[in-house]
Each structure stands twice: as structure tokens, then as C-alpha cells.
């Protein structure tokens, strides 16, 4: 990677700037131009040109193309980042999502001019409802965390409507950080439950916290240890018995597509991460899409707009509708349609059998890799896993001083992105590994061999890894203490 690197081109864009250079040229003004001072109040005009770098188009292309080569990505590398479902992003989606009539649709066009788009979104609502076993769907949330908050606001409106004052949201210790953060934004008090030693929800602990103030229990299933919550049906009953609701964090849906459905195991609400499960590209960290699916009795409270269909004389007509008791909008415009569209294309490509095969292969790949690594990287929880597993480097740390971080960093040298490390917190020296279904046995074998190689390398050498990357072990403490968040002259 350091070979043949164009270092000049990856200077900051501001350092590459040369006065007088420019890329974009615009046509001359073809209407009779008037002095700006006649059109706008002079005291509101900018006193000087905007302060931006000056580059030619080739400068810009060379700079950002070279920068891009400093990234690992799914298209270039195995990217087993646990919890993030870094599967292959089909190229057909990019071409099709860029078609005129889709990519250039303005959100305020009349319904007549967007019937095709509305038909796609309607069909997607139905498909997501079916996969969830929860029929009412809002496509509006922009990401998973946004979906969590939207569902919690929806639940709050439902309880409020029933005259119930429920203030508590419960979640297990191993929950994603977004769960409590979303509950807090939605105005709930957060209650974190201690888990059992085996990684599952402690039913006694849960029962002890359930009362008429309990609004929602948020749970990821399969959980963040990659295990299917065996008592999920009991958990749901317990919640429903006290009048509470069960929220399923759908981050790990890739394990159960067509196998079991959140609605069938007692969930009342859930979000999808379309960018994970249904291949919206991860885009260096967003955009995502976090649609939610809920039970019928919550449908009236969902944010609007939602796509509805009316049929007359064999012709379908689609319209945007706001539910009667809607919580209101949670963002401007319809939703992250560009990502939703890719999810739609993925579902239309796979169909029911294909979708089930995704989960089967994802679970097979994870279990295979787990088996290949178990003797050197033991997995403290569960005999088998779902779509991912959390291994512990505690043994190698104790025996050789090789930590999870050392392994993660050294993997980069060998051309593998690192697994998620040190999450969930319940596993010491955690390495959370999610291979996804779009990796071959050969890739998994090579990855397992590499881990073994690494564990036999000198610990001191690993402590200073990576060695082949453009930079190594950035000083994060310095970054946080001597904050430099922008370039300055």
C-alpha cells in the first residue's frame, strides 16, 4: 500500500490550492443582469468571495482518487466488522437507482408525476411488514438509531392516548449504545438490566424491574453476542402482562430472514438497517435507512407520510397519507429513498427462497469461521452462533500478551479489515466477527490461517502493528487533548 503512493496528491485540499485555479465554469448570465445592490440589501451581501480552495478538475480528481485508495472497503477487502453486516453491494443497484425518473424526482412533485416511485415504496412497505411479521411500516427514519427513536415516540403517543403514564425503557447491558440514547431523546428514563453469565437476559432481573411504569423493553435478537435469545417468547409475555411493549433492534436481522419473524416471537416494534441487511452501501459511514415496522394497533401513531393504495376498476393509485394520530414528521421529505430503493431491488432480486438462503449462508459462514478459530480464539458464550460470534483474546493476552487490538491492527497488514473490538463489553478482549453470506469458504480459510499466523508472531512486533498501512497507531489522546478539527492557514 505504501508502494507507488502519490503523497503529493494526498496533501490537504487546502494545501493543494493555487490562486487563480478553477474547475467549474458556468454559462454567462443569459438574462439581463442587474447590479446585485439593486436586488439585495447591500448590508446583507458578503464583503468578499467565499473562502474556499482553488483547484482544477484534474487536481480534484487526483486528490480524492488517491485519498480513496487509503481506505479498505467491501469491494476491495474482506470486512468482517461485527454488527455492521458488511456484505457485498450489488452493482446493478447503482445503475438502476440512477435511472432518470428515479434519481431526479423532486419530493414536491405532484402525486401524478410520482406514481411509479410511490408504487415501489408501497411494495417495500408491504415486503418489510411481511419479513417482520409486523404489518404497519414507516419508511421515514434515516438510520437505525433514528428508527429506534421514532418507534419509541410512537409508543409514547400510544400510551399517552390510553392515558397511561409509562416512563421507563429497559434494555440489557449488552445493548447498542443507541438504544439508551434514543430512549433518552424520546423522553424516557433508562433502566439497564444486568445480564446472565451465559449472555442471555436474566428473567428474574427483568421481572424485578417490570411494573406499570414500564413502557418498552428494547432487545436485539439475535443479541449482540450473536445468540438467539432463547427466552424471547417468555420475555415478550412478561412485558405484555404488565402492559408494556417489546422493541426489536433489527441490527442482526441478517440471521433470521424467513426463519423467524420479530412479530412472531413477540416483538411489537422493530427497525431495519437497510444499509446492513438489504445492501444499501455503507458509504464511509452513512447514509443508512432505518424503516420501522409495528403492530396494527400502533399504526395510527406512525410518522407521516406513508404510502397508501386505492384501487378502482383494476387501476391502482398511490398517495401519501399521514396517519390519523401521527406523532408528526421525524425529518423533512419522505425518507432516504435512494437507500430504500436499493433495499427494494435486493428483495426483488432474491425473493423468499433467496432471502432465506441469505440467512442460512450467513449463519453457516459464521459458524464455520467460529469452528476454525475456536481453539485459538475461544468464544465464551454459546455452543454455536447465529450470523456472528464474539471471540475473546483473553487467552492470548494472558499467555503471550497479545490483545484483541493487536490482532485487529495486524490483520490490516494482511489485507483484512478488523473485526469490531471491545464490544460488547461483557466479553473481555472481545473480537466481534461477522463474515456475512457473501464470503467464500476460501476467504474464511485464509482469514483463519492469518489469525493463527498472527498469534505466532512476536508480541512486541504486534504491539506496534500495523506496519504496512499508510499510518500506524494514531495518537488518539493527542487528538482529543489538542483538538484540531479543521485546517487553518
Amino acid at each position, binding site marked *: 500500500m505504501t508502494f507507488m503512493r502519490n503523497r503529493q496528491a494526498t496533501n490537504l485540499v487546502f494545501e493543494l490550492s493555487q490562486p487563480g485555479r478553477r474547475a467549474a465554469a458556468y454559462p454567462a448570465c443569459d438574462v439581463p443582469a442587474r447590479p446585485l445592490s439593486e436586488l439585495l440589501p447591500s448590508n446583507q451581501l458578503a464583503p468578499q468571495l467565499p473562502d474556499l480552495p*482553488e483547484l482544477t478538475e484534474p487536481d480534484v480528481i487526483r486528490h480524492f482518487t488517491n485519498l480513496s485508495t487509503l481506505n479498505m472497503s467491501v469491494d*476491495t477487502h474482506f470486512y468482517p466488522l461485527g454488527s455492521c453486516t458488511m456484505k457485498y453491494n450489488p452493482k446493478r443497484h447503482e445503475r438502476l437507482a440512477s435511472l432518470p425518473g428515479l434519481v431526479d424526482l423532486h419530493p414536491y412533485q*405532484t402525486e401524478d408525476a410520482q406514481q411509479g416511485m410511490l408504487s415501489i415504496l408501497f411494495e417495500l412497505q408491504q415486503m418489510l411488514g411481511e419479513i417482520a411479521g409486523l404489518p404497519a411500516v414507516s419508511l421515514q427514519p434515516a438510520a437505525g438509531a433514528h428508527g429506534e427513536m421514532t418507534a419509541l415516540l410512537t409508543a409514547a403517543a400510544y400510551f399517552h392516548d390510553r392515558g397511561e403514564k409509562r416512563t421507563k425503557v429497559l434494555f440489557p447491558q449488552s445493548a447498542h449504545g443507541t438504544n439508551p440514547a434514543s430512549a433518552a431523546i424520546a423522553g424516557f428514563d433508562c433502566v439497564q438490566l444486568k445480564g446472565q453469565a451465559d449472555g442471555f437476559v436474566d428473567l428474574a432481573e427483568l421481572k424485578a424491574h417490570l411494573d406499570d411504569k414500564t413502557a418498552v423493553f428494547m432487545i436485539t435478537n439475535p443479541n449482540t453476542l450473536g445468540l438467539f435469545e432463547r427466552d424471547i417468547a417468555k420475555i415478550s409475555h412478561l412485558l405484555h402482562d404488565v402492559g408494556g411493549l417489546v422493541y426489536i433492534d433489527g441490527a442482526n436481522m441478517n440471521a433470521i430472514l424467513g426463519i423467524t419473524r420479530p412479530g412472531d416471537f413477540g416483538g411489537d416494534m422493530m427497525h431495519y438497517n437497510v444499509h446492513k441487511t438489504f445492501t444499501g452501501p455503507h458509504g464511509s459511514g452513512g447514509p443508512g435507512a432505518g424503516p420501522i415496522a409495528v403492530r396494527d394497533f400502533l399504526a395510527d401513531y406512525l410518522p407521516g407520510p406513508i404510502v397508501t393504495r386505492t384501487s378502482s376498476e383494476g387501476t391502482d393509485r398511490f398517495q401519501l397519507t399521514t396517519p390519523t394520530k401521527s406523532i408528526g414528521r421525524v425529518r423533512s421529505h419522505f425518507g432516504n429513498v435512494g437507500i430504500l430503493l436499493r433495499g427494494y431491488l435486493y428483495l426483488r432480486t432474491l425473493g423468499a427462497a433467496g432471502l432465506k438462503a441469505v440467512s442460512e449462508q450467513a449463519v453457516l459462514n459464521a459458524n464455520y469461521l467460529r469452528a476454525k478459530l475456536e481453539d485459538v480464539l475461544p468464544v465464551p458464550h454459546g455452543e454455536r452462533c447465529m450470523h456472528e460470534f464474539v471471540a475473546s483474546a483473553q487467552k492470548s493476552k494472558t499467555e503471550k500478551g497479545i490483545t484483541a487490538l493487536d490482532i485487529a491492527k495486524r490483520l490490516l497488514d494482511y489485507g483484512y479489515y478488523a473485526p469490531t473490538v471491545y464490544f460488547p463489553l461483557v466479553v473481555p478482549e472481545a473480537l466481534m466477527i461477522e463474515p456475512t453470506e457473501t464470503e467464500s469458504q476460501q476467504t474464511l480459510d485464509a482469514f483463519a490461517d492469518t489469525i493463527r499466523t498472527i498469534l505466532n508472531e512476536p508480541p512486541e512486533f504486534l504491539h506496534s502493528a500495523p506496519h504496512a498501512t499508510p499510518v500506524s497507531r494514531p495518537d488518539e489522546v493527542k487528538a482529543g487533548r489538542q483538538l484540531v478539527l479543521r485546517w487553518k492557514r
Partner: protein
Amino acid sequence: MAYLFNTPESQADMLQTVGVGSIEELFDQVPRELRLDRPLQLPPPLSEIELESHLRDIARQNVGASGQVSFLGGGIYDHFIPAAVDAIAGRSEFYTSYTPYQAEASQGSLQTFFEYQTLICQLTGMDVSNASLYEGATAMVEAVLMAMRVTGRRGKVIVLGSVHPEYRNTLTTYLRHFDTEIVTVPTPHGTADPGDVTSLIDDRTAAVIVQHPNFFGCLESPREIFAAAKQQGALSISVFDPISLGILERPADHGADIAVAEGQSLGIPLQYGGPYLGIFACRQEYLRQMPGRLIGETVDREGRRCFVLTLGTREQHIRRDKATSNICTNQGLLAVRATVYLSLLGPRGLREIAELCCQKAHYAAEQLTANTGLKLAFDRPFFKEFVLRCPDDAANFAHRVRSAGDIGPVLSRFSTPTGELAASAKSLLLVAVTESRTKSQIDCLAKTIRSECSSATKK
């Protein structure tokens, strides 16, 4: 089966390594009574050829901006997108990577976001920018939540009626469980009278929100309003249009404490509502209360300059329910697009676009009100967008002239401000003019409207 690698032979070998007899057995931990005992009811699978044909059929049922002349605006605009933006954003290394948790393998994204943060600071004059939020409305709401944390006040938030109706609606949704009073200042004449706003600001007020240019395209007087907010210890939130900063003074110049925007104008396609880009910048002193990812410069173990995610202690993965926001990822790929776009434009490019929009919008306003029966609804300076009052119902009117071009959203579709405007909103049209519109397109629309109006008069 699409996108799966392992052959039946390979699967059998893998199952043997795992020590199970079948894939079915792998799912033993899912209780049998919870399993779905039927196939999902989904449409049948399509090959790539069939999928493409299916989608082209659907796309043809829509009318896109490239298939007609569009004067649609309302916060989302068809500004021209240079091909170089698509070329960079389409790079697999940006497109298919994720949040840069491993800095050594993510310097491309990290440096690009650092450049993005700098560009936003330069554009707005603010001290710090985060690496982006979802879109404009949630960026504005996050600004309000931050203002509440900074001021310790939850009593009142003042928002002008000329702020985008969907943004105000979103704010109401987020604050519905607070006791906070949202005071909407009526703007029946297109803008707020600064005196009306300042008299409302008190020591319970957490924030004052001004969109400038506002939803109707008109210029507000943020300087006076923000000065009054400062006196009362409330934070000033400016909702700006990035393109307007080619000719208008920056949010920092008129005293904004937090500047937020919809960044769609910066090289992001319309795509029916998203994904877009939430721009969020503020003064240095509020840094630790900011939502969202931040990228910082540092050095590596050999002293080489590099970039990392920083100040994670504000964020949900560490602070959980005490985090400054529940947001996890930023809008990475859209921030990449904006960074490339602004780098291509440079100072003179942005100035030219802003001037073209402004000149053409004023020409359009003149032509569309000359012997057409239409009138400008507001006698206020505007930038690239303006409101027309139609002789009758605007929706019907727009329908009649649509054969020649779409003349913008009908304001009655929105929850409009109280007062005079609400009563007259049914006759109002919002018209946006970008640099992509030509004189002949504007003339053509004016001509169509003229003939439509004269035939209506004859009837």
C-alpha cells in the same frame, strides 16, 4: 442464487467442520414454535435483465427533473452536479467502506471528512463543524436540543413562521414530550418584523431560529434578531442555504451561535427526498455539546500527520443515555459529495452560481408577473426563490400550466403560518430558479402562463 458463493460441496464440507449434519441444525437455538412454517410472501425473484426492465417501466411512470423544466424548490433544488462528483462518490473505496473505526485503514474517509469540516467552517465562518447529520430538519432539531443543554433552559423555543414547515413539524415531534413552549412568530408579509421577535425573547428562551433566506425565498433580518437573543442569553440558530453564501454574508457574520443547513444543494441528487446531508456548525465554546461524529488531526507513532474519530465521549457508544445525541453514523457518502463539490467550485464558482440563481430568479419574477395575472405575494428582497399569488386556486392553476413546466409546490400543501397567509395559502405558489434554468425556459413558462390566464379570463 444471487450473491452467494458456496457450492453444495463446499457447504457440506463446512457443515462437517462445524460438526452438524445440516443447515437446519444450525438454527437449533431458534425455538421451533417460533419458526416461520411457510415461505415469506414476497414477489418472485428477478434476474438482472428482468429487474432492469421492471425498474425502467416503473421509472417511466414518473416524471423526473431531467424530463421536464423544473421550478420546484422548497429546500431541495436541482442545482447542476458536475460529473466529477459522481466519479469520486462512485469509488468503491468510499462507497463500500464504513465508519472509520480503524483509522489506519480509513485515512481516505477520515481526511475527506476533515476537509469537509474545514470547508463548512470556511463557508459559514463558524469555528467548528461536525462530520454531518441526517438532513436539514433533524440538524435544526439537534441545534435546538444542543441550545437547551448549553443554556440549561427548556422553557421556550422561538421559531419564525417562515422556517420550512417540515422542519417546524419535525421540531414539534421531537419536543412533544417536553414542556417546552414552541412560539411560532407569524410572518404574514413574508418575513418577520425583528421587533416582533425580540419582544418574545426572555430568560426562559433556549433558542431563536431564523431561516435566511427563508422558506419563501425572502431575506430575513437575522442580525437584529440574533443580537436580541444574545442579550437574553438565548442561542441563535441560523438555517442557511449553502449556495446563497456565494453572495450573502455568512451565518457567523450575522451572529449565529449554531448554523445548520440542508446540504442537498452541494452535489447531491434529488432522489425523492433523501438521502441528503445535515450540515451542523457552531461556535468553539459549544464544541463539547455538539452531536455527531467529529474528525480530528493527530500524528501516528512515527509522527506522520493523520486523522481519527475524536471526542467520542460525547457519543452514544460511550455515554449511552447521557450522549449529546442518539446519532451513530454521519452521512458519509454525502459529505464526500459536498467536499468534492465545494472543491470543484472554489470561491468564484460558488459566487457565479449564486449570482446566476439570483439574477435568473429576479428575471423570472419579473416575467411571471408581467401581464400574467400573477403577483408577487411578498414585497421583500429574495435570493433564488419567490412566492406568487395566483388569481384562483394555486393547485388548479399549476395543473393547467404543467404541460410547459412545473412551477413549484403549492403552499397550501404545507402547514402554513397563522394569520393572513393561512387564509390565502391556497392561492400561493413557490417558484425556485437555479443556475440550470435558461432565459428561454423562463420566457416559455411566462408565455404559457399568459395564454392560460387570458384564456381563463375569456372563459
